[in-house]
């Protein structure tokens, strides 16, 4: 019995060996046309190879080819440039191609071993150095190949020019941060000599701040076959290391320094997050912002971009931050590579827009301090880039400079835009992301708004195209209502809200741009108990100004200034309600007063 079994195995094995020998090797490396055994079996006409279609944009490092043969059941081999032939099948995609001329060849061999003696050939050219930055393929915020469409849609803008007329040239951005490594290989060319500032030693060489260096790279890393690429890769950069010495005098200086020349001011900083405590901006800071609007860019106004804050998980709201909720800045939230709010990005009725900010080491790939300094060091082996760059830069610190870069492109496209025009264009051109999010609301002007995203994710193509045809807004009007005295007790920890209604008439504002809401409940010492909502009764649009939350050191609402972008385009006249609810126990107080100030035309 054993012998019989052995015999059967031997027979089967031999038969299998014969079959394999007949099929021939399958390593793809031999030239099938030289296998004389097959050539002698059946002499038929050689197949013809066709390249049916190709996707070879001249400004893309990717190329895709679809091909076929005149003979069914053909096999193919492909060759790119001078590389050897390898087996392939349709379609085939090549990625990370360098700029210059390229040649694709494909050759069919039919089932009988006949090979096309004249392979199909396709030649094309990839323009210039725009996309030759070797780490560009990792910059999902510029081109997202993981979740198509969840990027800032910038390549169509770059593809419009073969020179520098679409990369931010002539626009200057101040990076107000903890410093900037002005000699970084991917930033140095764009740094304006002797125009940065050091608030410690008063020189024009700022501290080499890690954070500021990463912020700067997102904005304007050079397109130069080195490292990464910035949103506005030919814009100019200056760095102010304010955070090295964050006094009031230095803050206001950083806001207005070289205001005529600084088109954009990027600010990826603010009061400490994670306290969920009201942090007011100073009157002098707001005065400085207003001055920047008045004198910046010779009267058109410096554009201030502000990180909305990272304290969402601590109960923060961007409207508790007197810097991010000021009408003169663009409060910017952050989204992941899937286009959804990051876990840390603060909600707020003051948000204007969002941009890629990433999470952890799925962050926004950017520059890092040269060598082992900075975020990417020997201690971070998971940060697998060249040590001059990092994949682990994430936060609203990262999303704000993305917007700053887009603003630079807008201002290059239309240098006559005022700062208010920039705000309006960003809002009206934003992409409606995360469509299933339940917070989306359409306001009275037909614009969709979300407490998580503002008007959506920045869309560079849409913003630049709209900027090109934009008619500037008329001179701004301001309408403050009277202070409405309420003085009603807010029921503790119940659903009984206190509602006050203001009737606005003859404001002269038919196109709201921003609303300030001043609110007082000074005797309610645990301000975190209160939920505060503004409602435009004419349209139903609501602004959730404050959520019930835990604050470790609560500051009472003492004429606190909230901000809302959500009523953009609505008419100011009408009835406005402020609804105040106490949704936590053990502290009580009074809804004392409130006031609205409308800004618009």
């Amino acid at each position, binding site marked *: 019995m054993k012998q019989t079994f052995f015999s059967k195995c031997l027979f089967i094995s031999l038969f299998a060996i014969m079959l394999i020998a007949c099929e021939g090797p399958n390593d793809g490396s031999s030239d099938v046309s030289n296998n004389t055994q097959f050539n002698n079996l059946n002499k038929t006409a050689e197949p013809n190879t066709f390249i049916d279609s190709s996707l070879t944009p001249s400004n893309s490092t990717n190329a895709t080819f679809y091909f076929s043969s005149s003979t069914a059941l053909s096999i193919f081999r492909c060759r790119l440039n001078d590389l050897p032939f390898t087996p392939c099948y349709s379609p085939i995609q090549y990625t990370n191609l360098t700029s210059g001329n390229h040649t694709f060849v494909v050759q069919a061999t039919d089932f009988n071993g006949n090979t096309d003696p004249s392979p199909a050939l396709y030649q094309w050219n990839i323009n210039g150095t725009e996309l030759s930055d070797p780490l560009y393929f990792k910059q999902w915020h510029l081109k997202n190949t993981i979740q198509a469409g969840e990027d800032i849609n910038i390549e169509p803008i770059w593809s419009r020019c073969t020179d520098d007329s679409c990369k931010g040239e002539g626009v200057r951005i101040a990076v107000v941060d903890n410093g900037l490594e002005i000699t970084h290989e991917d930033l140095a060319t764009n740094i304006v000599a002797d125009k940065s500032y050091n608030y410690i030693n008063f020189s024009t060489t700022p501290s080499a701040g890690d954070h500021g260096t990463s912020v700067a790279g997102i904005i304007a890393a050079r397109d130069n076959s080195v490292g990464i690429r910035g949103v506005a890769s030919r814009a100019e950069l200056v760095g102010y290391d304010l955070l090295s010495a964050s006094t009031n005098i230095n803050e206001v200086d950083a806001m207005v320094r070289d205001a005529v020349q600084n088109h954009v001011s990027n600010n990826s900083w603010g009061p*400490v997050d994670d306290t969920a405590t009201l942090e007011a901006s100073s009157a002098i800071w707001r005065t400085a912002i207003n001055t920047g609007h008045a004198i910046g860019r010779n009267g058109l106004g410096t554009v201030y971009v502000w990180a909305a804050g990272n304290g969402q998980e601590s109960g923060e709201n961007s409207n508790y931050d007197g810097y991010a909720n000021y009408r003169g800045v663009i409060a910017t939230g952050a989204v992941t590579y899937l286009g959804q709010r990051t876990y840390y990005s603060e909600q707020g009725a003051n948000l204007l827009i969002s941009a890629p900010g990433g999470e952890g080491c799925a962050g926004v790939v950017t520059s890092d301090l040269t060598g082992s300094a900075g975020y990417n060091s020997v201690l971070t082996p998971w940060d697998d880039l060249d040590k001059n760059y990092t994949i682990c830069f994430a936060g609203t610190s990262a999303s704000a400079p993305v917007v700053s870069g887009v603003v630079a492109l807008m201002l290059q496209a239309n240098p006559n835009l005022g700062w208010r025009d920039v705000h309006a264009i960003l809002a009206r051109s934003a992409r409606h992301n995360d469509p299933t999010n339940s917070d989306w609301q359409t306001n009275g002007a037909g614009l969709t708004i979300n407490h998580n995203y503002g008007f959506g994710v920045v869309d560079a193509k849409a913003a630049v195209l709209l900027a090109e045809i934009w008619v500037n807004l008329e001179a701004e009007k301001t309408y403050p209502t009277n202070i409405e005295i309420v003085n009603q007790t807010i029921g503790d920890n119940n659903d009984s809200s206190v509602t006050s209604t203001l009737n606005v008439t003859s404001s002269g504002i038919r196109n709201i741009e921003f609303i300030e809401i001043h609110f007082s409940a000074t005797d309610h010492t645990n301000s975190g108990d209160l939920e505060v909502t503004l409602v435009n009764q004419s349209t139903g649009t609501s602004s959730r100004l404050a959520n019930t939350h835990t604050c470790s*050191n609560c500051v009472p609402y003492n004429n606190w200034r909230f901000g809302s972008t959500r009523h953009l385009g609505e008419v100011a006249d009408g009835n406005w309600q402020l609804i105040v609810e106490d949704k936590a126990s053990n502290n009580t107080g009074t809804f004392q007063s409130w006031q609205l100030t409308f800004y618009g035309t």
Partner: protein
Amino acid sequence: MRTTQFSLPKWIFLSLAMILITPHTSFAMSSNTKMNVDNKQVEEKLQQYAWYDGNQKRSVWVNPHIMAEFSTPTKEATIKSSTTSNVKTPMPFVRFIEIKTDTNSLQAVKQSPEKSQLSPVLHNVASTTGTKRALPGNVIIQMNPDWSQEKIENWFKKYNLTAIKPLTFAPNAFLIQSKAGLESLNLANKLYETGDVILASPNWWQERATR
């Protein structure tokens, strides 16, 4: 082969666990209580000051346990006294010094050498755990934009003020010289209360963070 397993009854295990955990919990609670007592005691000690942020009066509270020392470009490490910890390292723009003895930060600042740049640390809330602010010196004022240069200079003389430099954030804005610490806050309040200025604020240092 038969094996015998020793199996601890669940109730004995839980009991032991509770016995082990409870002392630590009690200790923690008592520590918290102790800390709460300390906090309450600290809060009772917190001295309140007011200052003018534009036309809005704001309150700040002094942290009695730490003070701030500000550096200058030429300043070396400084201050050794019975009330402070020793200075060990080159100084950043601001560093915080823990008060180790029974005194408090206000007294420690008063006892410091004349040329030191010490300030009490203050908070926006009556708690020592709030975000920090301190006073590195000097006062920011904004005069009526219609005032002439001569009128401004006379006003400076009237109040014995030294203008360090004009400021660019607003018209007729100046940086006025004053020492670090509460002297700058008091001077700012005094100038604002004259009614002659649009704004008078101490030059605060405030805790800030990158995002």
